[in-house]
């Protein structure tokens, strides 16, 4: 299958990731959304790597994305738990101390 197809898939995945963040009221969906976006990026990296000369860069980059995504997820979870502790609710709308 051509590069265009992989890009289409990653674009769709990226869009769904954004929707997940924006639409759902639960903080966890933000986490999921982020992971989807990162995956979309990875698909792109590998696809372009594959279709443009096949060097190591694309894949190495994807590997580092995966590593950092892991670290990020850990920290994000810790933050979520704290937010939950502070606001006693999962909805991001409650955490509006930044209003004024």
């Amino acid at each position, binding site marked *: 299958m051509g590069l265009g197809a992989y890009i289409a898939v990653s674009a769709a995945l990226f869009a769904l990731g*954004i929707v997940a*963040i*924006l639409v759902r009221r639960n903080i966890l969906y*933000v986490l999921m959304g982020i992971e989807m976006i990162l995956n979309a990026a990875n698909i792109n990296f590998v696809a372009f790597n594959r279709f443009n000369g096949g060097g190591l860069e694309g894949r190495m980059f994807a590997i580092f994305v995966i590593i950092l995504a892991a670290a990020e997820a850990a920290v994000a979870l810790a933050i979520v738990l704290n937010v939950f502790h502070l606001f006693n609710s999962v909805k*991001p*709308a409650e*955490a*509006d*101390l*930044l*209003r004024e």
Partner: protein
Amino acid sequence: MIADLGTQPMTPESHILAFDPGTDFKLLFLAFALPLVGYVIQIFFGKKLPRQGDWLLTSGLFVTASITVLMFAKSLWAAYHGEEFRHHSGDEAGLWFHWFYSSDTVANGVSNVSAAIYYDPLGAAMLMVVGVVSFCVHLFSIGYMHGTPRYHIFFANISLFTFAMLGLVLSDNLLFLFVFWEVMGLMSYLLIGHFSHDPSSGYFHKWATKACKKAFLTTRVGDTCLLVGMVIFFWKFETFRFTELWRLSIEEIARHQALHPGEYPLWMTVGGLFIFGGTIGKSAQFPLHIWLPDAMAGPTPVSAMIHAATMVAAGVFLLGRCYPMFTPDVLSVIAAVGTLTAIFAATIGTTANDIKAVLAWSTISQLGFMVAAVGLGGVVAGMFHMVTHAFFKACLFLSAGSVIHGCHHEQDMRNMGGVRKYMPVTFACMLASTIAIAGIPFFSGFYSKDLIILRAWENILGGKFSGASFFAAVGLPIAACLTAFYMFRMIFMTFTDKYRPGTVESPFAHHAHDDHGQDEHADHGHAAHGHDDHGHHAPAHAAVAHAGHGHDAHGHDAHGHGAKGHDAHAHAAKAHDDHGAHGGHDEHAKPHESPLPMLVALCILAFCGVFGGHFWLADPVHSLKFWEHAHTWFEESVSFQSLYGAEIGDKLAAAIAVDHHAEHSAHWVALPLSLTVASVGILIAWLIYGRGWERSQRIAGKITHSIHAIYEVVKGKYFVDEVLGTTIVVDMKRKEEPRYEPDISVIGLSVHFANLLSWIDRNVIDATVNLVGRSGAAVGKGSAAFDRTVVDGAVTGVGLLTQTFGSVARLFQSGRVQQYATFAVFGGLALAAWLILL
């Protein structure tokens, strides 16, 4: 041309009287510089010198006078030897004084102004007159001014004046003549204003403050005319030197005549008239004579020297120097003005009661004579009359001064009378001078005045007829008659009959006493007292002096010197002051003879005045035959040829030449005419004033009553002063000077015009500037208001706007994170779309 002397001719070179350029120019420069040096020393150390430095200056003047006499003798000697006596220090001795540029070369093409000494017969005669007269005045004022405040300043000013007059006579170009001309104007200002710094002199004090300015401004008008005349001639001839000017103007006239015969270049006429304007100003001719009568506010020696002999003669001297530059039209104007002034002043002279006023008006009249003479072509006659007049008028003034001095500062003739008994020497000198001025034969006045009238009649009979010469031929004899009348009227009023002090209220003496009474200030008392102090000179020693002075001319210089020493000794003797009692002018003290130095000066001048005319006559015997025209010494040395050089002289002489027949007949008309006129004048004077005071008052009263209107006009000096707005009003009653009198400037209305102009300047021009300023301010205020409403409004408007946006924006800051993310995403998308689309 010169009749030989009949004596064996002396070899010209070796003789002491021969003019040799090497030393003589230096001597002339010395004579000229001495008074200046004296002035500088006197100004700085005057007060500290013994006798306040008067001896220093007088001896300085003595040296100057002797040099001038020596130089004059040389000119006479050269005349008798037929040599041409015209010496120029630049050409002969290389003595130049470069004025504008340091040397001629730098001025490439632009004429450099440089000066040198020019010495010719006219200059020699004038120099001798100035030297002798100023020496006598110095001598006289030692006695007269003794004890007055600022005594040393007076002497300094007189000697600086002499310096200026000598400079004027010696200068070789018109510009330097003008320089000394104006310096003389300054000195006359300072000297007339001498009493303005001495309040104790009462009437004189108030009168002098205004008179000095009036004198300076009137002469200043004349000076400006002379300056313009000079500029006109410089514009055409590019030079100021007399010799050049004469030559060029003669050539110009000749060239002009060649083009259109009979006519004269207009610009030369205009230039000539302007130069004559200078003479009118300085020699007090008709319109600008107003300052001379008021110049009597100065001390009498000043009047004697400046306003009788030297300064006023400078104007006539200028005419003599510029004669070749005048076209016939100018000459006729000069003659007309001269004659008019002569008659005009003579009439006023008859009505004057102040002794110095009589002499002032007579001076103006005699100057009119001289000017008329030059106008008629008789330069020689005019100059000769100037020389003789200088002597006897100076003598008249000094003797008048001595009379005033004697009568305790009384100037009004009606308060005098019978003074001959108390002041014999003064009377003798005054009588001699009066006879001379009246024109009685054997006295110098006769010869010079006769020459002028002769000149007038020669013009008429010789076919050179012009309105002016006719007016002169008729007018001058009348003036001569009036002169004789008022001079002898003065003699009879002051010297005959009994001494009658206080017959009439006169501001002079009366106030000298009152004034110092009121003066609260101590030192004034001393000064006023000083006045009375010197009056006390014991008459005793007058007799001694009387016998002492001899008639021998040569001896008088040495003798004069001796007398001065004698006087110093008398000064020390403080005799009791017989009229010490203040005020109470009725039991008035008798007049007393003046101290010796004054008398010596009088006698010298009287001698020169009387015999100046003809003593050195070619042939004295011939002069006795007065009915024939006697060639006086002056005519020998001064003639057109000797003055302006042979070729110019011949042309000028030719211009006024008259055939022998006309000359002879004119002589037979002029001589008897002047004799009869003089005797008629004297007779009338004797009839009215000669026989006792009461009778004279009666007769005079009847006459004045009959021609009342005319008498009032003449007495009011034809109201010339009032017309020009320059009358000097001295109100002794008023203590405070009027804060602002309009009568001070030369032309009264000019002050009003000045005030108008300064009002305009303040309210019109300044107003426009302020208007601009105020309109600027108004525009400023307007723009400020505009700024506040509109611009400021805009600013606040913008503020309002941002506030609304702010509140709208606040809605977005809901704190909901997801909302932010949505905005971010959609913002990014919009940006991407926009970037890609473009």
